């Protein structure tokens, strides 16, 4: 039994370790969470990137070659992500898109850097990721400090004085909450509440009751859409009408489904613009193709940002006529300017961060639609 198992094991190891000899297609890696708690994001990322790759292939491919997407599952877990990155690095990919969570991306960063592979993260907003001076790391999502700045501006412009900040103790939400708190502390406002909920639960009555005793003018929730939707619904049930403002993790149509139109109305959130609000041809075509292929609209904004990651990589390969990492990175750092993305214009600074004012403020209307304000 044992030896049989061992034979099978070594057999599979041998079979998998030798990559296919066909060198022809241009391979682009996608590292995303296909299992685990963030599987929904991973599925969206995969669908969007595969759709875009099909489009490129239907239009004759890239440099006359076919584009092939190599997928690695990071399970939303640092250890698995490090393995997925090692695996990706052996697959001769020209560049890698992903991944979602900041600490997951961090586990893979050095592996790609040492393998000289360009990495374009899509959902990893933690500030420190681009402060390490890695030459081949980029991200299509803005950073926490950028969003914190916009959030604080929005809160102050609305004239709120007693502000409650609620996060969920994930890297992303805590990072954003900390940034916002840092900026608000310098202003003439009171932070009456700063605490975390436990994500993944159903009943947030306790936290709502507790916040209510502090009587805030507004609640800034930096966590994700399921909790935001549940809280909107439960606060209406309790007859509490404090306004909520969310971060870009609440930008998901499911928010309204969970909360119901009535409870969601008036909710505001910050987010890069969704493709439906962009006047560009690329965005329109993408939306049509997505709806035709999957019969729904894209879910979270971060999956769309993975699509933008794919598109900037393709653009870099096209413009430099090569898959050379250094050439592509130089192009992305220095030459790409005003590239028309699915989430607005894209350009990168020397750190690999996206530049320009990305954030918009959205509001949920009575019909449950996300409406761009301003």
């Amino acid at each position, binding site marked *: 039994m044992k030896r049989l198992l061992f034979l099978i094991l070594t057999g599979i190891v041998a079979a998998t*370790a030798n990559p296919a000899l066909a060198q022809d297609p241009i391979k682009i890696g996608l590292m995303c969470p296909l*299992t685990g708690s963030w599987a929904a994001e991973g599925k969206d990322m995969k669908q969007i990137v595969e759709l875009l790759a099909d489009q490129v292939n239907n239009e004759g491919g890239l440099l006359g070659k076919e584009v092939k997407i190599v997928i690695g599952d990071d399970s939303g877990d640092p250890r698995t992500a490090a393995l997925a990155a090692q*695996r990706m690095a052996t697959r001769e990919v020209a560049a890698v898109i992903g991944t979602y969570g900041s*600490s997951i991306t961090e586990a893979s960063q050095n592996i790609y850097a040492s393998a000289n592979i360009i990495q374009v993260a899509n959902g990893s907003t*933690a500030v*420190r990721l681009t402060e390490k001076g890695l030459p081949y790391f980029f991200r299509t999502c803005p950073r926490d400090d950028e969003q914190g700045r916009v959030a604080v501006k929005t809160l102050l412009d609305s004239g709120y004085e007693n502000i409650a900040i609620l996060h969920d103790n994930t890297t992303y939400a805590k990072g954003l909450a900390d940034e916002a708190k840092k900026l608000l502390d310098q202003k003439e406002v009171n932070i009456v509440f700063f605490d975390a909920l436990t994500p993944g639960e159903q009943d947030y009555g306790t936290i709502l009751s507790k916040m209510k005793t502090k009587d805030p003018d507004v609640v800034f929730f930096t966590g994700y859409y399921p909790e935001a939707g549940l809280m909107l619904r439960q606060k209406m049930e309790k007859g509490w009408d404090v306004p909520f403002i969310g971060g870009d993790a609440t930008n998901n149509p499911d928010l309204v489904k969970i909360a119901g139109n009535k409870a969601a109305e008036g909710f505001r959130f910050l987010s890069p613009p969704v493709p439906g609000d962009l006047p560009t041809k690329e965005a329109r075509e993408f939306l049509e193709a997505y709806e035709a292929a999957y019969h729904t609209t894209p879910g979270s904004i971060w999956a769309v940002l993975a699509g933008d990651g794919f598109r900037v990589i393709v653009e870099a390969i096209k413009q430099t006529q090569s898959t050379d990492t250094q050439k592509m990175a130089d192009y992305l750092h220095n030459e790409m300017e005003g590239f028309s993305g699915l989430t607005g214009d894209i350009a990168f600074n020397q750190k690999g961060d996206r530049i320009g004012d990305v954030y918009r403020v959205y509001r949920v209307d009575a019909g449950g639609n996300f409406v761009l304000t301003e």
Partner: protein
Amino acid sequence: MKPAAGQIRKTAYAAIILLWMVAPLFIGKYWTDVLNNVAIYAVLGLSLNIILGYGGMFHMGHAAFYAVGAYTTAIVNTAWGVPVLWLMPAAGLAAGLFALVVARPIIHLRGDYLLIVTIGMVEIVRIALINNVFGITGGANGIFGISSPSVFGFQVNSIVAPAHYFYLVTAFLAITIVLFYLLENSRFGRALKFLCSDEVAAQGSGINTAGYKLAAFVIGAVWAGMTGTLYASKMGFISPESFSFWESVVMFMIVILGGSGNIAGVLLGAALIIGLPEIFQGLQQYRLLIFGLALMIMMIFRPQGILPPKPRSYPIDKLEKNEVSF
């Protein structure tokens, strides 16, 4: 018949050891790194085996000790720049002390009550880490910038060269196997197994059951803490999600699936539990489903674990010649 079987087993072990040692030369970085993970979890499994396999205590919170070791390493290394391998004893000590404090009051709990208490312990540790307890754990972000280990001035960077790290972790695994083998066959190991199979009788024979149980806990924790050093220096950064309750479950499954109380079984368990999900990577979103099924099927066909320990025998002729000692 018997010597032949023993001979085959020895040859098989030798072959596996040889294959393991030369494997990084042939299998590339990715699979080498998979083996690194297998080795780390093998050590963790062996350390849990002392508590769960020999001691028979239902302990599903081993990741807590692992976390204490990893965080001790990370904090001291990033704050004062102490080389990581020097921190191994400190990490082990911290985890051991932690185990001593928490295990003392709960050691007398039976079976499933101990199980839930250890689950509670690992959850409390994780929540404490997330909430940046004492302001030193970095909260949900964790701690980054941990240096890679250096052996006599040679930098062992697992990211650039997983094979270098492979030999480091293999050395630690080998030391662990030897020490735990000696422990298993010592007076301490026998007493532990005895109280595991029948606590009342063990107490009646004058074994200080609470003391032995506590000792088993502390030894297991020390070892898990030292493994935490290896993990922290391998990844270069650590965050609380690496020490969740599920990690404890993984270690638990390694011991039970492989063969609780048997070193070779635990090693095989680590290879299966850590290796199979990687082998199934090609299945993408189906891989965990298949893994779960494999787990159930293996357990049903080998209910004692894949390699259960052999019952200990004391042949009478050897006893008379004093070849077997108590």
